[in-house]
């Protein structure tokens, strides 16, 4: 079985960000730290678990991102993926999901993948578009918000998470794409020896400037800080002082 896992590098959630001078996007105020998109960790783990259960399974990971994204490819290799592919693209402004899907599709067509896995969404753009778009582009069956996946005989049985604790059970014919929900498994920590080996592993790099991209269909025209939803106050001082003030406030309002 051939599996492709699509992963993305995202900023450490506690990175300090500001709207850039153009007012069109956001930028970190200090040297950024990146990590593997949380949802994609679950996708890599799922692929590696399938590989461990099914002999002859090969797992490729792919990312569209800047040079620094090599690190997350190494992490995925360290978790047990076999090979990685890096589509090099700058990340100073958000790439249209359609473009990302097209670039990944171009690679995917060079190999016959039975299963393509992605995370449900990225933590930065929070759009959840690349998965279904990629499936549609490749004419694969797909399911998103997947909380369970079981492969057998050219099919995959999945449970999708709906609202209110409801699960929808479906069977898809392979080849299929699954966008997995967080909590589907417990992603492993990469073994150090695997990570060290991954650092030396050759990863083909495809310069996205040599790839075609269809015309963007939407444009981000501005970014801003959201307005306050409630007119709240911020307490100052050390924890003991703030705690003191908070208790007084809550007592005044008869909330405690």
């Amino acid at each position, binding site marked *: 079985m051939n599996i492709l896992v699509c992963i993305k590098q995202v*900023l450490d*959630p506690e990175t300090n*960000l500001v709207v850039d001078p153009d007012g069109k996007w*956001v930028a970190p105020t200090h040297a950024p730290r990146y990590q593997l998109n949380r949802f994609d960790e679950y996708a890599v783990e799922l692929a590696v678990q399938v590989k461990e259960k099914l002999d002859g399974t090969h797992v490729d990971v792919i990312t569209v991102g800047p040079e620094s994204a090599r690190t997350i490819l190494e992490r995925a290799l360290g978790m047990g993926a076999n090979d990685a592919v890096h589509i090099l693209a700058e990340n100073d402004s958000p790439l249209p*999901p*359609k473009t990302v*899907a097209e670039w990944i599709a171009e690679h995917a067509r060079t190999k016959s993948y039975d299963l393509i896995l992605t995370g449900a969404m990225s933590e930065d753009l*929070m759009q*959840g*578009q*690349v*998965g*279904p*778009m990629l499936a*549609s582009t490749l004419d694969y*069956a*797909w*399911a*998103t*918000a997947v909380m369970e996946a079981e492969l057998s005989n050219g099919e995959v049985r999945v449970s*999708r*998470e*709906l*609202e209110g*604790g*409801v*699960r*929808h*059970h*479906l*069977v898809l*014919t392979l080849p299929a794409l699954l966008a997995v929900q*967080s*909590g589907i498994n*417990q992603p492993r920590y990469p073994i150090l020896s695997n990570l060290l080996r991954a650092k030396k592993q050759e990863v083909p790099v495809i310069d996205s400037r040599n790839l075609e991209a269809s*015309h*963007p*269909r*939407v*444009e981000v*025209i*501005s*970014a801003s*800080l*959201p*307005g306050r*939803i*409630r007119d*709240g*106050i*911020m*307490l100052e001082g050390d*924890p003991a002082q*703030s705690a003191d003030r*908070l*208790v007084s406030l*809550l*007592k005044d309002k008869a*909330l*405690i």
Partner: protein
Amino acid sequence: MTDVVLVAETNGLDLLPINMEMATLATKLGPSITAVVLGDAPDKAAQTLAKQTGFNTIAVQSPALADYTAEGYIKVLTPFLDELKPGFVLIGHTANGSDYAPALATGLSAGCITAVEGLETENGPVFKRAVYGGKFEILVKPLFPTTVLTISQGSFAPVESPSVVGTVERREVQVALTATRSEGRTLTTTEASGLDKADVVVAGGRGMGKRENLKLLDDLCAILNRSAVAGSRPLCDMGWLPYNRQVGLTGVTVSPKLYMAFGISGARQHTAGMKGSGFIVAVSNDPQAPIFSLADVGVVADVKEFIPALIERLRNE
């Protein structure tokens, strides 16, 4: 030709409240609106929709549409929308809506904007949505003739009762599902957590740091009457709390008198489940955490220092 097509969100038979909110957005996007309900028995829902929105509604019927499947919806909606060529297709930002909307856009050569929270119309319609967990909002402008939008719940007020009832047209379609088989739904049986009955909800997020630190939440609850411990999704994903204690879009919605969020950033997926709370207190060591714009009282602090100080202070009462 129609300006807007609203694809109704149903749970199989009944219309969901989000449709009334999408209807409001539809009225701001164009005078000519068509609603569509898909299903095996869509007539009743279509009639209700036509009555409550005033939109002309098409009930598209097929046994293959009894359960939602991406394949079924795409196969039915694509030729239908190719025919109508609307400027906008409105879909609910729900688990199902999000499942097919981007693929529908691809097949229609349309743009796609998901999790829309607002509309601005100064220079043509542009759509507001959140990024970076809600720390920032962006405005997205459509560049193509048709744009598929998924609309987040709670973003628009429900549409007002119209003066005229819309027409209902029934269409029976043939759909062959070749790659998908629906095997129905189940409810994940989790014992009730009693979260919805608590007067005070004490919730922890990733800022709690380590699993052992959740004891601080238990200790706090022990002092507060009618309180319960809850958590954000990531804590439940890690197995620190059972999923029946998850507050958020895919978990429980609560509106207690007092909601205390410790180490929770306040991403949309979480705030969707608690933004109706009476009084919100948020403690986080990230001054940019979006939870602070929703809090009545905010404290920038390390929860591991703040909670013990709070417990100490409460014990002295």
